[in-house]
């Protein structure tokens, strides 16, 4: 059975840090392999990295703290005002909304930490990895007005299409009309029926 077609690769156990981007790259034989590639910041393929003591550090380069070595003050303040992407963020049960600049964040886990800080609600990071089991579910409204589960599409695509964010209680999520891509549990259940 062609497992690959079912999109079950997300069930694979793999060692790696959260939010490392997995991209399918066809190798010489045309086989697709999920290859961990470096973010645009580095712009370098794996070939150049397999030497010296740098090896074991390479995989975590995407998430390397403190690299490039630019002081945190400068990192926070080098943003062009015009490129800011402020979106409203609401959380069920919170009396008022907040605003957040998506452009400040590098990826989903960064966003999750920021959401946790903003509302003091823990479990955002977990929610992104495993929406099924957490108390809160982050969703967003896209350009078409649809409410989507956060985390399905590549980060850049998300940044561009996200118009507003909502942290919803899991209990309320059923029957809300979400459009999850490859919702695993639902798929397996429906296959099994």
């Amino acid at each position: 059975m062609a497992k690959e077609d079912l999109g079950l690769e997300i069930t694979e156990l793999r060692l790696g840090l959260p939010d490392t981007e997995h991209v399918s790259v066809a190798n010489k034989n045309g086989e697709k392999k999920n290859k961990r590639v470096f973010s645009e910041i580095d712009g370098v393929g794996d070939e150049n990295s397999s030497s010296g003591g740098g090896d074991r550090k390479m995989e975590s380069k995407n998430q390397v703290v403190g690299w490039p070595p630019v002081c945190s003050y400068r990192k926070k303040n080098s943003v062009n005002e015009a490129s800011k992407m402020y979106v409203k963020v609401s959380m069920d049960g919170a009396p008022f909304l907040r605003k957040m600049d998506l452009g400040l964040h590098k990826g989903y886990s960064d966003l999750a930490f920021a959401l946790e800080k903003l509302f003091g609600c823990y479990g955002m990071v977990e929610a992104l990895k495993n929406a099924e089991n957490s108390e809160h579910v982050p969703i967003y409204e896209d350009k078409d007005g649809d409410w989507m589960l956060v985390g399905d599409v590549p980060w850049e695509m998300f940044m561009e299409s996200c118009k507003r964010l909502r942290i919803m209680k899991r209990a309320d999520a059923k029957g809300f009309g979400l459009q999850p891509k490859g919702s695993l549990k639902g798929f397996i259940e429906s296959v099994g029926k």
Partner: protein
Amino acid sequence: MNIFPDEVIEQIFGYVTSQRDRNALSLVCKNWHKLERCSRKSVLIGNCYSISPERVIERFPELKSLTLKGKPHFADFNLVPHGWGGFVYPWIEALAKTKVDLEKLKLKRMVVTDEGLELLARSFMNFKSLVLLSCEGFTTTGLAAIAANCRFLRELDLQENEVDDHKGQWLSCFPDCCTSLVSLNFACLKGEINLGALERLVARSPNLKSLRLNHTVPLSALQRILMQAPQLVDLGIGSFIHDPHSEVYTRLKNTIIKCKSMTSLSGFFEVLPGCLRAIYPVCMNLTALNLSYAAGIHCRELIKLIRRCGKLQRLWIMDCIGDYGLGVVASTCKDLQELRVFPSVLIGLNGPAGVSEKGLVAISMGCTKLHSLLYFCQQMTNAALITVAKNCPNCIRFRLCILDPTKPDPDTLQPLDEGFGAIVQSCKQLRRLSLSGQLTDRVFLYIGVYAEQLEMLSIAFAGQSDKGMMYVLNGCKKLRKLEIRDSPFGDPALLTDMGKYETMRSLWMSSCDVTIGACKALAEKMRRLNVEIFNENEKVDCSVDGGQKVQKMYLYRTLAGRRNDAPEHVWIL
């Protein structure tokens, strides 16, 4: 040594100002030691934990100006856990208690509180100058206390601090009788200030030479301020956005033309490229230009601007200038001494990809007076580094950061050992060096052999074995600060020459191969070192097996013993 009476010797000492020279004087004989210490006005404590404030005050009773540095350099990159230390309050308290006639306080990477600022403001009648660099922990309330109480304040210089802005009226707290300001820099503050109060303050400060505004000060206010202060030498522009065809803008242009003394420009936190024309008249006099926060200026405008700045000595920019732009710098700025090129990749600019070795080579050929360099780039080659080494033998600071930290020479796929080797061999006065790119132990051999004047070395993702670190410790006799991250150096290297660390200010090692056992052994043997270990915000388990690797270690020489202000997750061995 009693040829001259003491008064004469003291007079002669008055001409010796550098701390190092004065330290040397104090070692000649007991009498000179006494004369020197009783006349010393200015002291730099490079590590606030190396000595207690009481001892400093005891030795230098005539102290007027104190400079303190707190956290290690890698704190800038979030490698030091929050709450680690560097509190200035005990120092201010000690100075106040012993009634030192403090006039100037300069702090770098320290934790400053409002209480500390309030105590400072109340305790020293002749206080004149407060300079805070990369500090944190205070709010605009503390600044208000300084403004309100320091009647003879000349300088308030806040650079790159994390300040909690309560958007209060701190600037309005400068009393009407305060007319002594020479330098005011609040560029790092996030909140609005009372523009009227600022304009009145500038109007009554005839000696004001340096003014750096934050991003909330609009162009219209800038124009009014410059009208009051055409004598400004150093200007930091906040917001530079206005309709270039408006009357306000025209007035600004005419006002700027009158600023004949202006030689230094910075800021531009918000900028409309079409507005830059207004500053063209001052460009030809500029010796310093810092556009490293001006994300709104695009490559083309940047180059147009720089073509007019023939006298530049110091230039800080972002890498969106590109190799071509650096070529323009090289042909225009023949007096350039210091260049810093920062990565714009941080702000997600999708433009031409930064700078490469080509830009650096162009600079080295055109700017023969270059002595300080900080260069973030996409790639570097050995050939380029060898050329740069040949062209810039007078380089004192050379900091290279390739954005991919282990990238080899893209042309030869070789490590960059030979390139950096050429740098240390040619630049005989090199005092500071930061390495990056793919590097083996060989580069450290070169450094150990040739870098005789090297005082500070930063290493990341480099080397192959303990030998690398040992070459450095063995060879660089003047080494003061060594900071290493993510490199395969372990216990043998750490313990090879324990006495060496007493000749240095500090050693930082993170994500290396050093074990707890070795750190303990080092701390046990060397009583005048503090060896600190911390993992990321977890309380360190003291009972853990000695073979376990240490995440972060920071050691420094000290006469003050263990410090007692460390948080739970920092373990002092």
